[in-house]
Structures are given as C-alpha cells and as structure tokens.
C-alpha cells in the first residue's frame, strides 16, 4: 500500500516544486524595491543593508526560494499586509468554507453531468441528443459571474425565494436547512461550466462503449438492457473520474467569482479582497493553497482510477 501511494505521489513532486517556484517567482518579481517601500526614500544605506539582510534579500534567488519553501512547508506563508495576521490563519477557515461550497457544486456536477451525458449517449440522433448537446454547450459557455448575477437578480431580488448572499441568516437560528438555502444559488453558479464539460465527456465515453464490441457481446450473452447499460456505465466511469478531477479545477477557479458575488467567506472571496487591497502575501498564499490542492486531487483521482480499472494498476 505504501509502495502504491509512493508511486502515485512521486511524479507529483516535480510538478509541486514547479508550482511553488512559479508562486515564489511572483513574490520575487514584484516590481519595486521592497526595502525602499518599507523604509521610505532617503533612508541611510546602512539601515537599507541591515533590513535587506534581515529579510534575506541579499541572498541569491535559489537560496531565497529554498528558504521560502522551507517556511511554506512548515505552514509559514508570511503575514497579511492588510490584516496584519499570519496568512495561514486567514486561509484555513476560508478553505473550510470553500470546501463546503465546492462539495455542494461537485454533487450537482456529477448528478447533472451524468444525467445530461447519458441522455445524449442513449439518444445520439434523436431530440434527446440535440437537447443534451445544446444544454451542455450553453452550460460550458456560462461564465460563473454571469450566472451568479442572473441568479441573484431572478431568485433573490425578483422572486425573493432565496437569499442573495452569505452563509447563514444572521437573525435566524441557522442549521442545515438554512445553510442549504444559502448554498443553492452559489452552488448552481459554480457548477454550470464543469457540469457541461462532464456531460460532454461522459456522453462521448458512454456513447463509445455503447457502440462498441463490449456492449454487443453483452447483448449477445442475453443480458437485459438494464444490465448492459449498467456494465457500459461502469466501463465509462474511468472517463467520468478523470473528468471529475479536472472539474475540481474549474470549481476552484470559479469560486473566486461566485464567492465574491455571493459574499461567501471562502478562499475565493479572500483572494478578491486581497487583490483589491494589493495584499500580495495573501494572494500568493491563496494561489499556492489552491494549486497544491489541485495537484493533490489529481493524485487522488489517479489512485481512484487504478481502483476502478485493473489495467492501470502497476
């Protein structure tokens, strides 16, 4: 088991190093002189040199990268400029909120994507296939911020059915029902693009299996249509899993807009606030956490793929 995990994790290491290097580069390449910015112009050269030394800025870039990486590995991502708090203390609670929203959206993506894709695969030439294709194109083309604004305008402002933002009702007692009411609109807004993509890929995968020799030979064995379909879905599921891993990327990048527009206190909202405040350490911390989470999810997807498909097991 350990060997199996190691084989899955090792290839991700160079990618992770690269990701951290890119994030570090955005720290190191910030235009302007941080020392001058801190001390103000006209500071004596000794003071400048002393501060540069204290910040480690006199070291060559690779050394500074190693140093920064060491701190990042121990959970030290620096201090937020605007909040004057450690970046990690701001990121962790926000990450929890984002995971709640992402999980809800992911559920929608899976259910909707599978249903829409199956409709297209089972009726490739009929009206069902056309509807499936048109709806997936529409979903794929629906930017999260557009959908979010339209949903707020219609369901919160116009019809007053659902709240326009927040995670819970400040005056209410809260509870799961209240959370669900607040989750519906942001989850739908975040889910549409990945839902459309999932539908397309699942449609293609299931369609290929259904038209292939395996489906034929299952029918020739006298299996009932429901059983044939079940086995075909099983055989299309590795594709679903693969695409599911990708969808997390779309969900994670979508939350920047969705959380901002729905005032959801997650990583995306934090990133937006950090961007408006030009709080670079917080921006970099947020980008790093999301990118690392993304790489991690892909390792998990790989492992799950191996669990479903014996041909991938090594």
């Amino acid at each position: 088991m350990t060997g199996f995990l190691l084989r899955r994790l090792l290839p991700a290491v160079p990618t992770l190093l690269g990701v951290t290097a890119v994030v570090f580069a955005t720290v190191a390449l910030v235009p302007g002189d941080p020392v001058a910015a801190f001390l103000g112009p006209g500071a004596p050269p000794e003071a400048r040199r002393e501060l540069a030394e204290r910040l480690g800025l006199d070291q060559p870039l690779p050394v500074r990268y190693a140093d920064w990486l060491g701190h990042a590995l121990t959970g030290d991502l620096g201090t937020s400029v605007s909040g004057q708090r450690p970046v990690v203390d701001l990121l962790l609670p926000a990450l929890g909120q984002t995971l709640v929203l992402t999980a809800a959206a992911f559920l929608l993506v899976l259910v909707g994507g599978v249903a829409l894709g199956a409709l297209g695969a089972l009726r490739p030439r009929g009206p069902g296939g056309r509807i499936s294709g048109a709806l997936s194109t529409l979903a794929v083309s629906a930017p999260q911020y557009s959908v979010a604004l339209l949903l707020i305008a219609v369901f919160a402002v116009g019809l007053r059915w659902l709240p326009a933002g927040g995670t819970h009702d400040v005056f209410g007692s809260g509870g799961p029902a209240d959370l669900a009411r607040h989750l519906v609109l942001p989850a739908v807004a975040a889910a549409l693009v990945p839902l459309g993509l999932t539908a397309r890929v699942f449609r293609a995968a299931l369609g290929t299996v259904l038209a292939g020799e395996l489906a034929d030979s299952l029918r020739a064995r006298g299996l009932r249509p429901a059983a044939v379909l079940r086995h075909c879905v099983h055989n299309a599921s590795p594709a679903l899993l693969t695409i599911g891993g990708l969808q997390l990327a779309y969900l994670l990048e979508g939350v920047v807009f969705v959380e901002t527009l729905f005032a959801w206190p997650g990583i995306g909202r934090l990133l937006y606030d950090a961007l408006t405040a030009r709080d670079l350490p917080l921006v970099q911390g947020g980008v790093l956490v999301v990118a690392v989470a993304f790489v991690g999810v892909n390792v998990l997807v790989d492992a799950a793929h191996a669990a479903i498909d014996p041909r991938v097991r090594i």
Partner: protein
Amino acid sequence: MSALLEVDGLSVGYPGGVRAVDGVSLALPAGGALVLLGESGSGKTTVARTVLGLPGRGAAVTGAVRLAGTDLRALDERALCDVRGRRIGYVPQDPGASLDPLRRIGPQIAEVLRRHGSATGRRAARAAVPGLLATAGVPDPERVARAYPHELSGGLRQRAAIALAICCGPELLIADEPTTALDALVRGRILDLFGALRADCGIALLLVTHDLAVARRIGGTVAVMRAGRVVELGPAERVLHRPDHAFTAALVAAEPGARR
C-alpha cells in the same frame, strides 16, 4: 427432416439504401457445422448477427429465422434476450474487446449463468465456472477465473469467451471470425475445440470466416457469400475442391500455395 436453424429468404437493409444481405436461405442440422465463407463486406457477419437478433441500428429485416421451429423474428426483444446466451452462444471476433476489461473472468461467466437460471445463487454459479473453463480447454481454470482479461494471452481469452458462449448449454454456437485475432499455432487448437464441442456436447456451429483454411478444417457445409447473396452452397469437400461457381473457383485459386 427439420433443421435446427433455418434461414429463409433473409434480407437486411440499412439506412442509405445499403443492402447488406439479399435473399439468403440456409439450413443447419442439430450438431452440424455450417461455414459462411466470403470477403469482408459480403454480408456474412450481418447474417450471423441477424440470426442473433442484433442486426444493428436502423436495420430493415425481412425473411424468416427459425431455431428448432421457433420463429425468432416473431419474438419480442424480451423473449429474444432469453434465447441469446441460453440457446444460442456467440463467440466474438476479438475477445480482447468483447470481454469486460474491468471485471474478472469468473464473475462474468457467473453473471450469465444466473441470468439464464443455469445456476441459482451466487455460490452455485461461482462453483460452476472452473468446470466450464475446463470444457473450453483452459488449463488451470481456477487461476483464469480469478484473472482480468488483460492478464491472459489471446488464446486463453478466446477460450474464456467460448466458455462464456457455451456456459448455458446452447444448441447453436455462432462464431464470427473467432481466430482472426490469434496467431497460427493457437488458431488450429481453437478450431479443434469447436470440433470437440460438436462431437462431445452436440452443439451445432455456425462459423463466419474469410479464410479457406479455416473452412477446410471445420468441414461440414460451406456457404460462399458475395455481395449479400449465397453464390454456392454444399459440402466443404466438394465446394472447396471442385467449385461450381466462378467466384468460389477464383477464391480457391487465389489462396496462397494453391495448386494451379
């Protein structure tokens, strides 16, 4: 006498005006062998698939297909499902593509046994699998039952596919180019297995091939097909050695190593 399989004036057309099979009539006695011989595109596979009731999307079928007197064309899809796998076994061309790659061999066979009521209960079905694999000539059937298709050689995979086709004791076995994906050595052994199944279990064989050598080895009756029609029909001995029809003669003459 009444044949086990009777195909009468069978025609199959596809959208776009393609006529894949055009008025084909065939008969196969119980325990007999019938080889459908022809080039690719001659309609021989379509005949085999139409007998199974799987002519494909949008096919227009006319004519009759009778299995031991039962008109298969009159059956609804539900009743046909009961015939497929139980009374007619099907051996596909490429076992690599037709076995479920995500499941072990054993459960795949057990599933068909339970579907057709040849075994009641999970345990009984699982217990029957090694014996069936052995009938299909699989050495070490216990190990093969636990294997995934990709872990087996091409020959073993085809034997597993044959075990799947015969597991419910069918009267008829339809094999579509069953040896094309195999190398020469394994090919002969698989063809001998079909002979053994005929002799020992009385399973009639309808075999589709483009290969004269395969047709010769199977024997029985040969039907030569071209452009959707049967151009020559008769005992293998006569058709393959003293062909009446010019096309069959050309086919025989074109065989590598043919005596001229």
